[in-house]
């Protein structure tokens, strides 16, 4: 029992950054904006969270800084794509390149320095329960936040007027504009939300998952998060399945490496999450072609309201 519980706990940890980042990207895409800069925003979030937590000694301030940093980068993305009508794909790539550069510049002095891991939110009594305790009640705040965020997003998108307007902007920007909804402002909001959650995802990596800073420590998780949105057909609850599935693959290959299972070099096992992403994208695409229909109709399209 013990090892299974421990494994599950580590799967949850591996899934959390994916869940946070994918959830934010989902909201942005629902509003019609494709932001390929998730990886860059995560990295900048990771380094800012780490630096602030280390210098102030406060994990909360670190998390806040990460969220802020992600939000600022997203704002930059919004300015370019929504304000200046730049190509969203190109700008997203620029954001990632920029984020990689900035984070390694800022983080150069922190490589190898350890920081205190985020505290677990222990609930007296509950956390000590066998099995259920560590599984459900032994995590840090960001883990709970990641799941709460999914629930919140699902509720917001499908149960509130604001969510309806957001979906309308992603579905038909011109019609939403003609009905008097501020398309650009809604999209700005969605993009910044995506940036904030990507920043949080980065903070989870540098403050909880491996409490340290290493250059390029996201290792493609931002891109996997983008793939998860496609996997989930833009439905928040399905992100949960996708993220935990990927968390599972990650942990599985780590364990296999640790135990020296299968006589293959560790690098080959490390390829698994990336290969799994390609496999999943392929399977989704084969599944009767439904996938494309769920995509917001205006995804990636620039919108310029007539004066």
């Amino acid at each position: 029992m013990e090892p299974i519980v421990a494994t599950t706990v580590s799967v949850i940890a591996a899934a959390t950054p994916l869940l946070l980042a994918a959830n934010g990207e989902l909201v942005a895409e629902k509003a019609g904006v494709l932001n390929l800069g998730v990886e860059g925003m995560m990295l900048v979030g990771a380094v800012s969270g780490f630096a602030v937590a280390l210098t102030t000694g406060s994990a909360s301030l670190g998390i806040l800084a990460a969220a802020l940093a992600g939000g600022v980068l997203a704002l930059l993305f919004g300015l370019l794509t929504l304000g200046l009508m730049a190509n969203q794909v190109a700008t997203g790539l620029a954001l990632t390149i920029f984020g990689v550069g900035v984070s390694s510049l800022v983080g150069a002095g922190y490589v190898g320095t350890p920081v205190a891991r985020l505290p677990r939110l222990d609930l007296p009594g509950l956390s000590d329960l066998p099995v259920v305790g560590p599984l459900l009640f032994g995590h840090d705040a960001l883990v709970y936040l990641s799941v709460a965020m999914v629930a919140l997003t699902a509720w917001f998108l499908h149960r509130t007027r604001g969510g309806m307007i957001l979906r309308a902007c992603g579905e038909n920007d011109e019609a939403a504009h003609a009905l008097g909804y501020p398309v650009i402002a809604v999209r700005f909001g969605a993009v910044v939300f995506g940036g904030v959650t990507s920043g949080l995802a980065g903070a989870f990596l540098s403050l909880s998952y491996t409490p340290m800073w290493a250059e390029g420590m996201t290792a493609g998780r931002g891109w996997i998060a983008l793939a998860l949105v496609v996997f989930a057909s833009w439905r928040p609850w399905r992100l949960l399945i996708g993220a935990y599935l990927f968390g599972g693959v990650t942990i599985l290959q780590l364990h296999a490496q640790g135990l020296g299972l299968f006589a293959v070099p560790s690098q080959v096992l490390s390829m698994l999450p990336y290969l799994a992403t390609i496999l999943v994208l392929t399977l989704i695409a084969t599944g009767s072609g439904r996938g494309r229909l769920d995509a917001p109709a205006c995804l990636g399209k620039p919108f310029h309201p007539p004066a």
Partner: protein
Amino acid sequence: MTPAPSRLELRGITKRFPGVLANDRVDLDVRPGEIHALLGENGAGKSTLVKIVYGVLQPDEGEIFWEGARVEIRSPHRARRLGIGMVFQHFTLFEALSVGENIALGLEERLERGRLERRIREVSESYGLPLDPGRDVHTLSVGERQRIEILRCLLQSPRLLVMDEPTSVLTPQEVDRLFATLRRLAAEGCSILYISHKLEEVKALCERATILRGGKVVAVCDPRVESARSMAEIMVGTAIRETARPATRLKRAPRLVVDRLSLAPESPFGTPLREISFLLRRGEIFGIAGVAGNGQDELLAALSGERPVAEPGMIRIGEARVGRLGPAARRRLGICVIPEERNGHAAVPELSLAENALLSAHARLQLLRLGFVRRRAVAAFARRIVERFDVRTPGIEVTAGSLSGGNLQKFVVGREILQNPEILIAAQPTWGVDAGAAAAIRAALLELAERGTAVLVISQDLDELLGLTDRLAVIHAGRLSRSFETRQVEIGRIGMLMAGVEEPVPAEAG
């Protein structure tokens, strides 16, 4: 007692866009309970004006009065709160959202879902506009979609309803039903501003008409007493010459044979083609009428080769079975095509006219040498189009997107005609172009047929087909009716076929 103030009054409204004066000191007044027509050709400034009324655009100059009080309509929200409802020409609907959500998005009032659905049912029943609030929009027909737009307005009991070209997508029977609804609304005191360029409709429905030309008001009249011809002359600005009904050419040899053509739709929102058969003869103009979205796009794609079909023999040019050939191969065999959408389909707005000339002419004309483009030959061809079809442009190096709709359409039509096609297929060849360009395009099609080309015109404009074609048939839900001789056709019968009331009987070919 002073007379009641106008419901809406515009004074001196002016709106400029880069390079265009869309509205030039326009005055307009709409009285309570009146059905008021706003008439004008495409590009006369009607849509700009109503967007100003609905708060989508802001005027550069001028004043708006609502029930006697000066107002500024900064946004559609403000317009709706004043009591203005609008049904757009291009629907403002969200395909992936439900009918209920679509209506809620157009309402100022925030209703909880259950109550909203009850109100939708009430109002839709009382006006005879049945709709299910739970359905997703992409599953609905065009007529049903328009009902959503109308219901959206009716739910907030408007005092002014603006309808922008509402009948262009409806069958004659649906038009009658719409008119009945509008008359009832007017009788209840709601004013209606009815935008159209169809004179017969305006005569049948409206009490007063304001006529726009080139962004200016040129007349205010009573359409019930004016003749359609006199209004048309005011609208167009020159005396109209009726298109002569072409002589019949029904005995010639078939050039194109379409034989039980079936094609599955590409997207779930598309229409499947079901066993379409017809013949197209040398020198005739054959028309296919029908309401938008009944398979016209699919038919055009199947005939042009953009979507190859399953059986090569489903489409034959003379003896050649071409069903599986692509567009370039079919062009070499003599089919040229004018798609409905100019921007991004028939032409690439970002590219120069010369490049756009190369776009479709590379297969039929000698424009290549060893895979390399003969740039001088392309430029010469582009210049020939510009000269022969009177395309107003500073040169052939400007982008296609900088031309006006009418000029670009003349360029596209010219490009296909100057390739000397044996078969020409044109979809909505005069859609959205000014009267002068439309007349020139129709004349060019007639002349082409005169020289022996087989011409197929797919159009939603029944009047155009009646004036242009020798024979016509109706497409509905992907099926084509038998064909009728245009001179003897009964309009009511066509209307029934367009509405799908009468099942089309497949005929001919084999």
